């Protein structure tokens, strides 16, 4: 019994080891798919691995959205916009772990190794993990970048086949993490190439220690980090998929930071003095995409009619609890290319019926709405949203059936375009407007299966390609304005909302900010020791 009393009392004991006292526990909503950002798209994985383990050549300033130097100290572009030359930072060390000791600092070989893995089919690691690089495929990287060459030990040249004004922004995304060529050679020599993606080595603020699937990820501070050392000595991602359980762990201080608190509970959380809620506008879009290759959704009038029949205002209240901005375009209003002159799409079921009749469906039809089974920032409750839409659609004579599968099968079936329509969304990885158009609605995205509307339109593709050929922002904006106008007329997808991102944390934690362009960084988190 005295032991038990001691155990209870020790809750407020100050004598704790350093790794525990300054350690940070981030309770995340799911397990990562891999420890290499090149291979993944899910925000859960990016949050857990990208900013903690790796650095990129460039960084995005979270306030202004401008590019900043990171592993590249400066860069030059030739006049035609097809050759980029980067000068690399010297003295950057890779992680030293139980399974790898780096023999040299970061240099141009690492950059070449990293990007050749993505585009060179003969690269020893290209097919490791399936040979899929979803983000880079969606921006057509393999055709854009002709080659990457080292001009000296600390300068690298990227030669492009055409000018692309989103190129630098793409290099700054969380997916463009720099791997170690030396480590690649080491795992290859050991005959275990798979370890490059499961036992990561990077230059980031933390180094990998262990991963237990569905339980936790453990990192320790990278002692030779080139910037200021990470504040937490230890960083643990405690994997808690259940929302209620994650909140309970926050209240008992088992978690220091909690990803994605349920918006319905924000009121409850903010009442507690020991817990803070942070919010930030985030670059994302939740939408309803129609499979435009399937009749009747190949008719723009049908798509418009369906879009008009939906009461989006009610959805904002019931699904997002008001913590979101109504969307009028796929681009959020904070983007510089946002078209503020777009006419508002009316909620008008009479007009919707008329449009349906005009298209030859006066008596309506039956369709499926696919609702994703997981909670995502851009759509916290797709099933509820689908139910509301089902009721709205019934008003214009369209009989909707709600379909859902387990998340992995759901995504696989979507990529095969088995759906009629789907409720899903997108979170941007960088500030460039191209990041909303090309990965979502271009023909190349339709081929790789990330274009949920299965929409391949030559006019639209021409507009967004032309926007990439120039770096003049005014000119680019005019192309994007036209593209948004065109989308509003064609309606391959109905934009619903731009959600805010929330994060709940103990009030003794400071120094964490939500990055609107992708993954969270926890290196600057400070725990106020009592």
């Amino acid at each position, binding site marked *: 019994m005295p032991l038990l009393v001691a155990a*209870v009392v*020790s809750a407020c004991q100050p004598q704790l080891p350093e790794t525990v006292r300054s350690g940070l526990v981030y309770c995340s909503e799911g397990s990562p798919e891999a420890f290499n950002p090149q291979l993944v798209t899910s925000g859960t994985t990016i949050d857990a691995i990208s900013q903690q383990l790796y650095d990129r050549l460039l960084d995005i300033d979270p306030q202004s959205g401008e590019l900043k130097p990171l592993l590249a100290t400066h860069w030059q572009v030739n006049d035609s916009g097809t050759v980029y030359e980067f000068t690399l930072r010297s003295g950057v060390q890779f992680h030293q772990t139980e399974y790898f000791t780096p023999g040299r600092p970061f240099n141009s070989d690492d950059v070449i190794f990293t990007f050749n893995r993505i585009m060179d089919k003969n690269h020893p690691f290209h097919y490791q993990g399936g040979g899929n690089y979803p983000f880079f495929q969606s921006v057509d990287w393999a055709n854009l970048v002709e080659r990457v060459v080292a001009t000296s030990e600390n300068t690298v040249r990227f030669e492009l086949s055409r000018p692309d004004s989103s190129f630098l922004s793409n290099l700054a995304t969380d997916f463009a993490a720099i791997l170690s060529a030396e480590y690649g050679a080491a795992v290859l020599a050991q005959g275990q190439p798979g370890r490059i993606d499961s036992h990561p080595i990077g230059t980031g603020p933390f180094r990998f*220690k262990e991963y237990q699937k569905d339980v936790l990820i*453990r990192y320790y501070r990278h002692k030779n980090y080139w910037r200021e050392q990470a504040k937490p000595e*230890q960083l643990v991602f405690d994997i808690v998929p259940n929302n209620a359980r994650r909140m309970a762990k926050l209240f008992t201080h088992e978690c220091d930071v909690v990803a994605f608190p349920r918006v319905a509970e924000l009121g409850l959380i903010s009442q507690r003095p020991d817990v803070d809620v942070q919010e930030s506008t985030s670059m994302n879009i939740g939408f309803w995409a129609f499979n435009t290759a399937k009749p009747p959704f190949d008719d723009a009038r049908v798509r418009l009619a369906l879009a008009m029949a939906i009461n989006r205002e009610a959805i904002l209240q019931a699904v997002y609890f008001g913590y979101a901005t109504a969307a009028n375009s796929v681009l959020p209003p904070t983007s510089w290319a946002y078209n503020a002159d777009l006419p508002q799409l009316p909620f008008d079921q009479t007009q919707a019926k008329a449009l349906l009749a005009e298209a030859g469906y006066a008596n309506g039809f039956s369709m499926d709405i696919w609702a994703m089974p997981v909670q995502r920032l851009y759509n916290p409750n797709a099933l509820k949203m689908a139910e509301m839409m089902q009721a709205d659609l019934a008003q214009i004579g369209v009989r909707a059936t709600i379909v859902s599968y387990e998340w992995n099968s759901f995504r696989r079936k979507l990529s095969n375009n088995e759906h009629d329509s789907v409720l899903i969304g997108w979170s941007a990885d960088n500030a460039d407007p191209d990041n909303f158009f090309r990965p979502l609605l271009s023909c190349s995205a339709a081929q790789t299966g990330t274009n949920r509307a299965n929409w391949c339109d030559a006019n639209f593709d021409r507009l967004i390609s032309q926007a990439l050929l120039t770096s003049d922002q005014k000119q680019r904006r005019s192309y994007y304005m036209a593209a948004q106008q065109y989308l509003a007329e064609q309606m391959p997808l109905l934009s619903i909302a731009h959600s805010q991102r929330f994060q709940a944390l103990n009030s003794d934690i400071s120094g964490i900010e939500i990055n609107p362009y992708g993954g969270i960084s926890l290196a600057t988190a400070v725990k106020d020791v009592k």
Partner: protein
Amino acid sequence: MILYLLRRLFLLVFVFIALSILAFSLGYLFPGNALQNFTGMTDIPAELATQLTAEYRLDSGYIQQYIAYLQRIFSGDWGLSFASKQPLLQEIKILLPATLELAAYALLVSFFVGIPLGIIAAIKPDGIVSRIISTLAIAGYSIPVFWWALLLIMLFSLGLGWLPTAGRIGVLYEIPHITGFMLADILLANSQHQTEALLNALRHILLPTIVLATFPTTVMIRFTRDSMLDVWEQSYIKTARAKGLNRAQVLYRHGLRNALLPVIRQIGLQFSTLITLAMITEVIFSWPGIGRWLIDSIYQRNYPAIQAGLLVISTLVISVNMLTEILHTLFNPLARKR
């Protein structure tokens, strides 16, 4: 006595054969392809499939297949888990100690709390103390374990903030896996922060232990009390009292030993209930044991894991049952003679 042990052992072997036949037939009874259910591999390429079919004897009769299955079980090749693609035996080796640890603490608590309370309740069967104990025992016996767990979490974790809600130890403590028993591993790990880690682990184990111990404790109380009352009526107790032994001496030398015999037998009988309750407790407290793993496997339709998990748990229950039976016989000369 040796004959008795042999008889028991024979029975154990027989029950195990019955269980393994059941587990084996699940490979066919579960949906999907038997080869996948036995190997745990999905998307098996054609040439590998022929090779595996031969290796698993799936092309011969059921009896040969069953013998091959038994051989694999004993050689440690239990197939892979659908979900993690890891060898099942490896996973079970990591998970089983966590469940055993929890169940062991709960049993210990039920001994050290249940038996004394049962004795106290038997001393004055109509007294107020006895009535209170009996009432608590009935309440504890009938309370649903998940509700009880949630109540305790609400009070001690969310309300008072004293105890954590999940896991075996704070995630910031890195304890290497040696025996799989958390407290033993902390002592073996030999870090300089042993005491803090130990206290932290104790805070984690407190609530699950209380929850899991509730049911067996109440069973202990009721059995000890009833059996004490029974024994107290026996003539040898009266003789001992008449010989001039005081109450405590009689209780200790003649009463307790005889009264506890049926209680030992109860442990064996209650063990299967305990394991079932441990599964629920593990789910509620995110305790990384075999029960939670088995329930997850059912959700994920992880057939190889269900098969292996059922075999392990039922073998465990049967073995413990047998063991207590043998202990009971050892302590009871009457049963030994039979």
